């Protein structure tokens, strides 16, 4: 996934779309919007980012899970098997992005890149609803995909590169 920080206006449509699509419980969310201001007045800059689970290639949450509830599923998406989760929260502690939370029913929940949609060829709800098209979704291993093209054409970064988790959400800057 790519997230264009120059297009994002922080409207929170992605957050609402996710809540609606996945019928999230009250008080929980799988994605969120960060507004970061840097510099000293009057030389200020602002960056708005829509953030979520980074679907890491080396996910520490999966390594820390004692029951294999957290696992790497199809297409590299990190998923949680609800029937195996004990709610021990080791994965929440291990996640460098604070992208997990305890669902009111006891299991740990997180963004799945709307796996139920993407496996049928549809886009994740957040990507589909984004009014400025700041979010793009596709196969990073396919050189012809839009996300691969954007990463070749634009400067980009990842959150917490020091974590060693190899995150797969790229922020275009």
């Amino acid at each position, binding site marked *: 996934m790519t997230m264009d920080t120059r297009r994002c206006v922080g409207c929170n449509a992605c957050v609402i779309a996710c809540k609606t699509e996945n019928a999230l419980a009250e008080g929980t969310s799988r994605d969120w919007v960060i507004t970061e201001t840097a510099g000293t007045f009057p030389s200020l800059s602002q960056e708005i980012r829509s953030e979520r689970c980074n679907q890491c290639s080396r996910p520490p949450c999966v390594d*820390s899970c004692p*029951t294999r509830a957290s696992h790497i599923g199809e297409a590299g998406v990190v998923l949680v098997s609800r029937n*195996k*989760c*004990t709610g021990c929260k080791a994965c929440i*502690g*291990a996640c460098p992005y604070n992208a997990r939370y305890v669902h009111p029913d*006891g299991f740990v929940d997180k963004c799945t890149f709307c796996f139920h949609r993407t496996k049928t060829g549809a886009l994740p709800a957040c990507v589909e609803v984004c009014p400025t098209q700041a979010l793009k979704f596709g196969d990073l291993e396919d050189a012809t995909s839009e996300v691969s093209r954007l990463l070749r054409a634009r400067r980009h970064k990842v959150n917490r590169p020091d974590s060693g988790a190899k995150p797969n959400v790229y922020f275009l800057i």
Partner: protein
Amino acid sequence: MNSPIWNWEIAVYLFLGGMSAGLMILSCIRSGHSSPERLLPFLSVLILSVGMAALFMDLAFKTHVYRFYLAFQWKSPMSWGSWILLGIYPAALLFGLTRVEEAEIARLTPAPLLGTIHSARRWAISQERVLKQTNLFLGIALGVYTGILLSSLGRPAWNSAVLGPLFLVSGFSAGAAILTLFTEENNLHRWEMHAISAEFALILLYIFGLTRIGNPDGSTPADLFLGGRFTAIFWVFTVMIGLCLPFVLGRILRPPVGNYRFLGASFVLIGSFSLRWIIVTAGQS
């Protein structure tokens, strides 16, 4: 998204788990002939069970607790810990049986179980050396695990390999403090003094290690203990009350007797619990 992951339950679990590890180690390295020391393996199991009850309370999906024992994840310290905890019960109980008399078993065991317990005792006595080594290994593994559980999660204030040995030594110290409440042997006092000294050195190493980790804003996790939010509580409860006071009492009175013995042990227990509580909380701040 930044609410605490683990609260008091985990601090209590790590404290009691460490104390249980300390008692297991003590049960192996001491003769076990005196009355309270004979019961150390049973006491360690009892204390561990209370700690595990606290851990159970922390689980968000309690009915899935059995899932810990349907998988082994070698990269997950919590998985290692689950299996270590499971191994401790038979190992410690069998080792405990080697130190009780047949008459005592007959007095305390319900009649239908008596034959099984007697057979288990006879077998345990024949394997006493192996059981002692197993208990020593599991005790050390449990003590180290209580620290590694945190240090493996990569949070800045937990990001230290010293936490394993630090929690092991602190757990040993807590176990010795519990035993001190029931016995006045000078030999035990010597072990306590060594443990307190080692714990102090490990705390300094832990904080020194944290000064070498940089947060994005230029601060270091060591700042939490050196002027930050946990400074007063850490240096007062963990270092002053938990280490300095019992050490000074021990050096002056060699060893402390009467009320001073209880006072010294209480200080050690307060320090040992506060160490877990503060580090569990600091890692999530």
